[in-house]
């Protein structure tokens, strides 16, 4: 018999977890090896977050075995888990902009001058900050406020914080979503360095290109089961991953549509500019047409959408909806022209979480039902309209009149917001990241709904970070780069690589 093999850094065997009668993890096995990057992929609801929550001590497991360097590892709190060397960087960064960089680094264990007194040893804190910051190539003054850092730098700051002490496993949850391409390169270089330092990195991402680029090992989850396990990620393709994640190829997710006939446009944007944000935007959207706005985070996609709807002002240019010119920064004008707008952040801007589904649905359209002389609301037709829309968006909710929105799943919440705008019968529907954080089933429902709207002659303008989604849905894709429309692609010209190049500012024409 040979000598005992070195146990993997983190080993998971037969992990199961149920919520009530739903089994969300059905016995999964995988290893994270020191000095390698393990990518964990899967749709929302596949069991990814549950796995992470168990590993980090947020949830207890039902059954199964987890070992860290061969020792049983069952943390009961995130603190336990972090103390054992498992460091978790969540998608939503935990940086306090009003604290200094050094204070952010040592927030939990601030070095003290005297052990039993709460006074901070500032010099020691700053010296140690320097060392940690160097590990992630961050050349910033530790005294400076963390609020001055860019998103990419904040991410590196989080990593520096995670590297304190004995960091054995580093979990990165969607670390690239809010970074620029340059920042992503920088992050990947740091992760490479961690590999050399024998840290086991667990990388969770929806961005399959990033997964393939970075990972050594890949585990794909679907419905709580592992559908793909591979130890040579360089040989995989995105198509393999999607197949494992969704169970069928991407194309099948999208409904087939007849391309709309050319008709006079619903929306015309002419020379739209706002200093420092948008520059010379020209395009139009015809009835029934689905136009996608692609581009990197921070390219001005969302700003353009918000400007058209009037949530943000513009200095020059015109937004014309069905021949009517909308005033800059006037949401009411947009509403009057029957423009609907689905915001990026439904929880913050869109929904009243404690109100019922029906009340949330009725909100936008309510004035249209105030038909009596005193402006009282005519309840019967309103209730009927609400019920119709609920059916149209396939709301899987038992009772729209009593269920508070808070209790719905993310997908159903999004359907409520969409349904609410449908009640006002929009001519133009602008949607900012309509399927972010939504499970595959709800996504398909929403795609089908878009196809239905398009067939009914509604013009749709969709902002999305998921290129697959735009490729599958749109008649035309406009690619934004630094506040301008870099290139426009018609459906027949759709090509992933060309669109990505345009998004990175390397347009063919340039």
């Amino acid at each position, binding site marked *: 018999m040979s000598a005992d093999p070195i146990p993997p850094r983190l080993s998971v065997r037969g992990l199961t977890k149920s919520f009530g009668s739903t089994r969300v993890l059905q016995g999964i096995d995988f290893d994270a090896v020191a000095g390698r990057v393990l990518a964990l992929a899967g749709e929302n609801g596949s069991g990814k977050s549950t796995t992470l929550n168990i590993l980090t001590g947020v949830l207890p497991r039902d059954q199964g075995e987890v070992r860290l360097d061969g020792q049983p590892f069952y943390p009961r709190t*995130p*603190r336990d888990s*972090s103390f054992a060397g498992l460091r978790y960087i*969540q998608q*939503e960064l*935990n940086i*306090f*902009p*009003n*604290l200094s960089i050094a*204070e952010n680094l040592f*927030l*939990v264990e*601030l070095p*003290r001058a005297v052990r039993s007194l*709460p*006074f*901070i040893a*500032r010099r020691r804190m700053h010296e140690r900050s320097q060392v940690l910051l160097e590990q992630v190539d961050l050349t910033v003054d530790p005294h400076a406020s963390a609020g001055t850092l860019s998103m990419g730098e904040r991410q590196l700051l989080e990593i520096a914080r995670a590297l304190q002490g004995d960091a054995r496993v580093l979990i990165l949850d969607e670390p690239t979503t809010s970074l620029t391409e340059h920042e992503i390169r920088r992050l990947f270089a740091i992760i490479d360095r961690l590999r050399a330092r024998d840290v086991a990195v667990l990388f969770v991402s929806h961005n399959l290109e990033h997964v393939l680029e970075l990972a050594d090992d890949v585990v794909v989850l679907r419905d709580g089961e592992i559908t793909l396990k591979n130890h040579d990620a360089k040989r995989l393709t995105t198509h393999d991953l999607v197949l494992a994640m969704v169970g069928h190829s991407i194309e099948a997710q999208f409904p087939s549509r007849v391309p709309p006939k050319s008709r006079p446009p619903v929306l015309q944007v002419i020379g739209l500019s706002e*200093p*420092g*944000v*948008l*520059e010379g935007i020209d395009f139009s959207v015809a009835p029934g047409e689905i136009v996608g706005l692609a581009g990197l985070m*921070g*390219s*001005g996609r969302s*700003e353009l959408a918000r400007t058209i709807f009037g949530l943000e002002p513009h200095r020059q240019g015109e937004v014309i909806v069905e021949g009517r010119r909308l005033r800059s920064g006037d949401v009411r004008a947009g509403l009057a022209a029957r423009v609907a707008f689905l915001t990026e952040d439904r929880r913050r801007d869109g929904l009243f979480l404690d109100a019922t589904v029906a009340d949330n649905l009725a909100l936008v359209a309510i004035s249209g039902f105030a038909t009596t002389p005193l402006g009282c609301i005519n309840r019967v037709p309103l209730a009927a309209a609400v019920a119709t829309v609920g059916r149209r968006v396939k709301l899987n909710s038992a009772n729209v009149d009593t269920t508070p929105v808070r209790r719905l799943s993310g997908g159903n919440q999004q359907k409520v917001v969409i349904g609410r705008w449908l009640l006002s019968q929009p001519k133009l529907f602008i949607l900012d990241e309509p399927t972010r954080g939504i499970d595959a089933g709800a996504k398909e429902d929403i795609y089908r709904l878009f196809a239905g709207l398009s067939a009914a002659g509604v013009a749709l303008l969709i902002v999305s970070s998921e290129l697959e989604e735009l490729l599958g849905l749109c008649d035309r894709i406009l690619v934004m780069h*630094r*506040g301008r429309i870099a290139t426009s692609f018609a459906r027949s010209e759709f090509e992933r690589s060309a669109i990505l190049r345009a998004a990175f500012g390397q347009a063919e024409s340039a």
Partner: protein
Amino acid sequence: MSGLSSPKTAKALLRGAPLVLVALVWLGFGSAARPFLTLATLTDILVQSSWLTVLALGMSFVLLTGGVDLSVGSAMYLAAVTVGMEPAATPVGLGIATALAVGALLGACNGWFITRLKLPAFVVTLSTLFIARGLGLLLSSTRIVYPSPAVAQLGRTTVLGVLAPAWIALIAIGCAWGIQNRTSFGIYVRAIGADAEGARRAGVPVPAVTWGVYIFCGALAGLASLILLSETAAASSAYGQNAEFLAIAAAVLGGTSLFGGRGTLSAPIMGAILITSVQNGLAMVNANPYVYPVITGAIIFIAAVIDSGRLTLMKRLERRRILAG
């Protein structure tokens, strides 16, 4: 380009809005009543604002964490009654210690209900507002109480040419600054102010820190009470009434947000000086005493309007820029 259109100048001006407001009030009253803008009056104002500064300092910590303490006025009364019940031979040190202890104890009760029973701060401190005043009335049998001569003397003692109340306020400011910047507690308070949920996730002991903040606020209310008591040398049953609102107003005037997260140490100080300046100035122009609350209220309102405008403007200036230049 004019100075105002440069974002940097505009930002600096907006940040300094409370200071500008104080200057405007001083100039306004100075032109209405000559003697206002003298060194003697301005020094007076600084000394008179000592107790409110101390009170607002504690309040600003509470506001920073997104809470509120409505009971500080009653805490002041209860502390004053307790100090007044001490024997005539009581030295200054014991008086200060008593006042601090009474305030801290009440703050600890507030903090316990808020962090352990998870009741809203507004409700808890509204209850203790009545309870503490009631206790004070019971203890004093509603009679006016008088501090020991040593405590009363404190208000007239000068050290290095500056009156003791101002020194106490300065020491309190120094301590608050040290706590905020040099202790883990202070850093935790600021982290909670920025994002309580994030702080909890980062491992900050949020309930313990929050509790500490109410104790700190209570203790400073006790100290504020002692400062005021040393100046008035007597406390009637209305002592400290509505002080909580003055403290909140002072903190907000200086730029502390009522919704948590935003505020610096200079905010309560500037706010307290501003409020005291207004009251002092009104006395100097012989305004009808019944007009005071109206003017004070109006100034708070104006400051709030300026503050909200300031925030919108700041947000605009700090908006992300996509294009270069």
